[in-house]
């Protein structure tokens, strides 16, 4: 625990990270950047898990395990997402989402 830094400050940081991620996800056109934005969102959630665990229930470990679990799932998700992006690039020679708009009515 860092002196002078309470739960509130950490939650402010994670909230900022979360909305930075959402903003990036909605505004960026590059698929790689969008993937990075989702990582930001996930990591903000991880911070929340760890912080709540540390400050509110210091004798328990569920928060830590959950964040480890989220990291593992995120790694798998990245692998799948990268594979999709590479395939898209092979077919469209682009990683821009606006060029990949075939799947509409």
């Amino acid at each position: 625990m860092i002196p002078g830094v309470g739960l509130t400050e950490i939650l402010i940081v994670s909230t900022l990270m979360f909305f930075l991620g959402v903003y990036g996800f909605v505004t960026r056109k590059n698929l790689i950047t969008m993937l990075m934005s989702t990582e930001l969102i996930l990591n903000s959630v991880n911070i929340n898990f760890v912080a709540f665990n540390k400050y509110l229930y210091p004798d328990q470990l569920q928060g830590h395990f959950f964040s480890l679990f989220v990291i593992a799932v995120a790694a798998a998700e990245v692998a799948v997402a990268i594979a999709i992006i590479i395939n898209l690039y092979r077919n469209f020679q682009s990683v821009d989402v606006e060029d990949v708009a075939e799947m509409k009515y």
Partner: protein
Amino acid sequence: MDFSYTIWIPLLLLFSFLVTGLLGHKMKPIISGWIAIAAIGLSWLMSVNTAMRYFFDVGKVDGAYQTIIPLNPVWLNFSETLHINMGVLLDPISVMMLVVITTVSLMVYIYSLGYMKGEEGFARFYASLSLFSFSMLGLVIATNLFQMYIFWELVGLSSYLLIGYYYDKPSAVAASKKAFIVTRFADLGFLIGILLMSYLTGTFDFEALTDPSGSAMTQGAGAAFLGMSVMTWALVLIFLGGAGKSAMFPLHVWLPDAMEGPTPVSALIHAATMVVAGIYLVARLFPMFAIAAPTGLEIVAIVGAVSSLFAAIIACTQTDIKRILAYSTMSQLGYMMLALGVSGYGGEAGLGYMASMFHLFTHAMFKALLFLGAGAIIHAVHSNEMKDMGGLRKYMPITHATFLIACLAIAGIPPFAGFFSKDEILVAALHHNVIYFAIEYLVAGLTAFYMFRLYFGVFWGKEQKYHHAPHEAPFSMTVPLILLAVGSATAGFLPFGELVTSDRLALETHIHWEVAIPSILIALLGIGVAWRMYAKESDLPDRITQSFGSFYTWAYNKFYIDEIYQYITKSIIFKGISAPIAWFDKKVIDAAMDGIAWITNTVADAIKGIQSGQLQHYAFAFVSGAVALAMVFIYIMTS
């Protein structure tokens, strides 16, 4: 003694049906024929063996024949009280029917080897025949009404298949549909009757239903509907099913058309076996008719009498030889129905029952012989019309001799089979009501006339110019003719009264000469008239036809029954009921469904722009949705 092997009598035919039906196209046609003949031959041996043992060895206990049920497993189990069995019931009439069916089947199977030679679908023919024999045998050994109903419908199905055997011929297709629909219509009555009866008595079992001192006899007698007790209604409805199968007036219209099928089929199904299923049904439930519903039995008698007279008149005017035989079948079936209708239960009063079964037995022999003989004639001259025939006795001596025996038998000339059974029927009718006797006496004369009109017209008369000289039928066809002729000549001497009676006790029978002599005389009169008119060419038939005038035209056109049905179905049912219903279906029900589909389509068309294909738009919608949901939850949690 154990009779459980009797289950194989029908099952062998089922195997034959499966083998010839499924593998028939892989083997040589003649092989499938022989498989079916082997199956029916074994069934025949077992049936005859069963009959011998039943009638002369083990069936009789204290002078009365017992009902033996060697097998009766539960087939469908619904509840403690409601279950349907499938089993084997042996009593005098079912054992007699086993012998009749397997004998005629065996003859027809052998005959078909020659008659159907070289036809397309030879294996299919034998498969359908096997299916028919299987279902008919299953029908007669049924232990309960429901099993009988199942096999009853199977018989109707195989009849449909065989009438429509030449399925590329539109008239055959129409005839098979007509037969199926008319009998199906009658079977609706049968089904309602079964349900009513099981509701009243709580059982399907024949043994419980026909026990003369059982509780089934008195149930339903109290409640009345339209002047008849409910039990009478149930039996009349069941009789409706029987009347449909046995081509009783006014449900007879399908039988003459059914002659579109191959001639061996007409011999087996539409003369000797299937059409007597209705008679058999009434005989099977006879104790109920006689004890619980005498009114129902009177209806049976009236229908039988009307049918026999009606068909005999039409038969005198027809020119297609198979149709003449079809109307003659209907007339003889009317005889059997009438005999059942005038009979009482037990003792001397039960003479009609015994006479009916006796006539069923002898009729199967000589009518099958007549049809097979007609088949041999058609085979030789390639036509069904009497005008294309004449003077055939020189070309076809065996067919001629056997046909003559059959004609004498049906006309009731002693010592041939028909004389004995017809005599008993006339005596039974006379005991009951003199009007029935008068009708049947007249019919006996008409029968002799139209049969010998056919006989003289075909075998005597003016010789036609044939494309090639008609030849005698092959060996496989003449052997069954000869065997059946022997049967037709001698079957009358069986001591039938000792074997098959209404109360299972032996009945003393003797020839009633006071009835027999007048009936022989009227038969001889009929033959004489036919000889005078048709044995030599003359203009006498035309002059007589003209003197009858419009009555002849009516009879020639079968009293316009077909046209009346056409009018009722086409103009009244189709136009008055079906067309408005079809309109309602199209314009209201379908329109409502179409409207819903149209609304969905239009709305979807209007909002499909949302599916832009832009990932950002989806992501924005997703995030906004998540945020909105979060706000809602926060609001709910905090308030």
